[in-house]
């Protein structure tokens, strides 16, 4: 395999999808169990299963600046730095849903 060991794809208005050999750790160095080959990491900050995505961004109206310039699938090298800074979003709207 001459592929990169790991790719992180920033999906518009969604999570970071990580493909490849991945080791996730807590700040204390403890391993976080990864059970699948492709994982979605929370980017909106609202997931109930962080660091993984649980789809809550769809309820909160999370938006990334790259929406509408979707090159997912062809541009999956690189990092999440292309205009996907979370500071542009807030939590407005998330409490509108009906979960406790």
């Amino acid at each position, binding site marked *: 395999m001459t592929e990169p060991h790991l790719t992180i794809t920033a999906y518009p208005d969604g999570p970071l999808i990580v493909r490849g050999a991945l080791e996730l750790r807590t700040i204390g160095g403890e391993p976080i169990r990864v059970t699948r080959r492709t994982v979605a990491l929370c980017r909106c900050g609202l997931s109930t299963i962080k660091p993984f995505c649980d789809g809550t961004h*769809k309820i909160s109206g999370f938006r990334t600046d790259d929406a509408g310039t979707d090159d997912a699938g062809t541009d999956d090298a690189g990092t999440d730095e292309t205009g996907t800074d979370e500071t542009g979003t807030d939590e407005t709207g998330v409490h509108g849903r*009906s979960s406790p």
Partner: protein
Amino acid sequence: MTPIELHPRGQLSEAVLDRLQHGADHGPHGEDLLRVTTQQVAASSDLLRDDDVQFALFLLQASHYGSLEGLDPHLEWDPLLITVRRHIEDAFEAQLRHEVRVPELPAPNSAAVAKVLFEMTAPEAGPSLARYVAKQASREQAEELLKQRSIYTLREADAHSWAIPRLRGRAKAALVEIQSDEYGGGRPERLHAEIFAETLRSAGLDDRYGAYADAVPAITLASFTMMTMFGLNRRLVGASVGHLAAFEMTSSIPSRFIADGLRRLGYGERTTAYFDEHVEADAVHEQIAAHDLAGSLAEDRPDLLPDIIFGAAACLTVDGWAGSHLLETWERGASSLRERVLA
């Protein structure tokens, strides 16, 4: 353990079951079976809620899956049964194309297709089956839900796997990426169908395929026969892809509600694991399905775009009807399952 018994729901399913179980020499012959088929289909005012027709189609498709015991494998390609299945599926598809409302088609590029799919599948705030389960379903109703789900979930992902050889390139790679995860990524105990079988066992239910086939109503079968029809027919590969996308995109958040409901009712981790797993899994799958599968396919095969959107809309519509059936029967204190009508 006693074998699973299957009971016909009318003339057509009786004739089909007879032939599938007892061979081509049994039951009505050629012209008679075709006549029964055309009669029953023509006489039906709503094929999605027609128990006899849906059960017949379920059996005919089960012959391809190999999911039910006692169906003669030599009859999988029996020309007469293929003719019967095609006749039912053509009428079923025609009804779906007539009744399913499809939004305006997006441009055939990945971003536009993904955007429309996310709009179509956006979470709604109102009452839903999953919220009902989270907050107020009884243990009996939770069991009903698991029985209803067993028709698809004990064969989870299989319906869309028929599409794999019909695709090429990016869309094929994306579908296999999703299906590989559905099938446990090489670990049999992680197969989603197996995780669900454990859910059934832990709840004291029967984990054999078809154990609840007699109990579920036509609309539950229709949800499954529709996705199987999309998968089994090469001309409908776009619909199969759209269906999978919508299916994955409406699973993550409801799965969390259902897992919460099961915990509220006192079920343990063995029972909730399947739904907990889908919170995480389908948050991955929905991105791949929208952008890399459906989006890429629309770019590479713009001729399939209408069917991609149709398949997604059909999934949302029919699964919406199936969910409403459960919700409506429960709200009036009834069971969502069929009362078995024994001859």
